[in-house]
């Protein structure tokens, strides 16, 4: 006998669709599959409470045709446009503001290759100092923010970032050892970035191995705990190395606090390939990272090779982080505040999160660098101080105003 259930009038159009996805077509249930999908009235009535009837009477159903599609978290054009606009605006401000005053229109024309009317000296400042610095800030910010988002996704933990996983500590130790070996007085040796890489990869490997041993008991929490332990250990090792090489302590501190002041095109070129590779790997896992949010078991039951995906994403994010850290030092908070802010305003899915973290992360760091070099002119503040000083209260405000997040 037919059930009481009435399809809403606007739902019949979609229900008439023959294609219910590639999967059902292969359902061996045969005629029990597609045919039954179309004839809801053929349902048997068991005499029990039929749940579906409860919603048929809902008055809100008039707008449902749009409601289902609208419920999906998508990268809305307005957010994409806002992100691009933020990058452009930050870039322009970063180029125009500086110790040497220049007309904004002239600066923009100069960068675009148009006749600008700037003096040769001013043009050189733009091309050799400000532009590479702004580009470096964009790349470092984009890398740290998107890698933070990836760590949080892959470990399904909002606290995961280069710091909690020991990646930054590993990079710090590597750089400290390199600077210590080079001895005092010399300029930053060229192999510091390489040493930072090695340290970062060592750290993330140790964290991964420690966090995944123990058979069935391994969990996301175990990984983070392992990361904290590894970070403490590596930081202790770094402190020891610094104590043994007191003559280079100041140099190491400068690096640890983070700075973009030595920026030239050289650093941009060091970072660029890693940025591209990391970004490509992370963006191509935008769906899979969402699936990992369901936990390891459910992701595996949905056909995902959890271990392989996690390893790949972690290695990519660690490479990106290490590259960023090696050219800019330890810049805290970008990997936490940018992704979380994006989640709160634009939605949680990685299809939204990763692209917007890249854009807003870059813009944020350009502005942070601007603050670092203008607040106490002619001196400079370490940019890590700015990101933490601005980032922590801002993040607290965002958390406080969002009940949804803290549910």
């Amino acid at each position, binding site marked *: 006998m037919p059930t009481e259930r009435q399809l809403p009038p606007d739902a019949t159009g979609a*229900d008439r669709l023959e294609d219910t996805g590639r999967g*059902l077509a292969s359902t061996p249930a045969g005629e029990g599959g597609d045919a039954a999908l179309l004839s809801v009235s053929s349902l048997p009535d068991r005499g029990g409470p039929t749940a579906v009837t409860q919603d048929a009477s*809902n008055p809100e159903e008039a707008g449902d045709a749009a409601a289902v599609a609208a419920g999906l978290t998508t990268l809305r054009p307005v957010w994409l446009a806002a992100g691009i606009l933020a990058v452009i605006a930050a870039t322009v401000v970063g180029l125009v503001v500086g110790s040497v005053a220049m007309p904004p229109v002239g600066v923009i024309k100069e960068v675009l290759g148009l006749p600008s009317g700037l003096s040769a000296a001013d043009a050189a400042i733009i091309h050799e100092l400000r532009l590479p610095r702004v580009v470096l800030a964009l790349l470092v910010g984009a890398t740290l923010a998107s890698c933070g988002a990836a760590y949080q996704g892959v470990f399904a933990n909002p606290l995961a970032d280069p710091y909690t996983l020991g990646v930054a500590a590993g990079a710090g130790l590597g750089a400290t050892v390199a600077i210590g070996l080079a001895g005092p007085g010399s300029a930053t040796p060229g192999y510091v970035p390489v040493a930072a890489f090695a340290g970062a990869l060592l750290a993330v490997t140790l964290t991964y191995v420690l966090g995944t041993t123990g058979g069935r008991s391994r969990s996301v929490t175990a990984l983070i705990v392992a990361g904290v332990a590894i970070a403490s250990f590596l930081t202790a090792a770094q402190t020891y190395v610094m104590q043994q090489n007191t003559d280079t302590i100041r140099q190491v501190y400068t690096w640890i606090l983070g700075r973009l002041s030595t920026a030239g095109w050289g650093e941009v070129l060091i970072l660029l390939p890693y940025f591209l590779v990391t970004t490509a790997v992370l963006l*191509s896992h935008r769906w899979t990272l969402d699936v990992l949010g369901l936990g390891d078991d459910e992701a595996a*039951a949905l056909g995902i090779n959890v271990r392989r995906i996690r390893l790949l994403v972690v290695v990519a994010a660690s490479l990106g982080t290490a590259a960023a850290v090696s050219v800019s030092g330890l810049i805290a908070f970008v990997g936490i505040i940018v992704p979380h802010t994006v*989640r709160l305003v634009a939605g949680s899915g990685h299809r939204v999160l990763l692209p917007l973290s890249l854009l807003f992360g870059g813009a944020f760091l350009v502005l942070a660098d601007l603050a670092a070099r203008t607040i106490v002119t002619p001196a400079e503040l370490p940019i890590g101080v700015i990101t933490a000083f601005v980032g922590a209260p801002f993040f607290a405000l965002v958390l406080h105003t969002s009940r949804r997040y803290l549910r």
Partner: protein
Amino acid sequence: MSATALAVHDLVVQVAGAKLLDGLSLRVEAGEWLAVIGPNGAGKSTMCRALVGLVEPAAGSIELCGRQVPARRIGRGRRVRVTGVSRRDRARLVAYVPQTPVVPAGFTVADYVLLGRTPYVRSLGTDSVSDRVAMDQAIRRLGLERFAGRDIATLSGGERQRVLLARALAQAAPILLLDEPTTALDLGAQQEVLELIDTLRHEVGLAVVTTLHDLTLAGQYSDRLVLIDAGRAVAAGPPESVLTEENIERFYGARMKVVYEHGRPVVLPLRGPVPVRTTDAEAG
């Protein structure tokens, strides 16, 4: 509708030396509802995990829709490696709803249901139009239209269970595997969910396998029951042949009265001295 959806033969699962499944065999036809019952630790959840490939069987075989999943030990350690049917193919055949699903923060109902399309999403790609159509249909079928944009975390237990069903439906697998779908639900929500499952299996022709603690619900809703104890099936058949006072006393160590309502067994607890389980007696 008589095709065999699921056939399990002599399945053995060992974890850390303990045999959680010890020669389990069962069979489910397309469109049939099989309820798996048994005392705590009998191996119900382990069976579910083995069927979706989360634990590696040490011996025996699993056949999904006529496709053999040879349970051979390949690779090392706890790594699940199954020859024949790939992870993705297996996920297209079995949709699994675990007992305590992880609900990711900040996901809307539509986002969550769409994740059921994972076995069809291209490697390194993202959802296609047909995935969204399947998501849309699953949401409509479960009457969740007005919840589509809601954060799942804000839903009640019953609503959330419907969302889980929608995700499983979007997965478009012929076998629906639910581990204790009524846990933590109030009485009304329990019946609502089970009625929904029954509706879906008739509409779509799904084979349904549920583990259930509540023997009355198991008897009322399923076509057939399998009672497992210590990792093997000790009774199987229609509800009235499995849900006997003798079986319940023997394997659950419980004093129960079985009465019939609409020809199906209803299990009522009785006060009094608790009988000794056969398995406990053997172990002691």
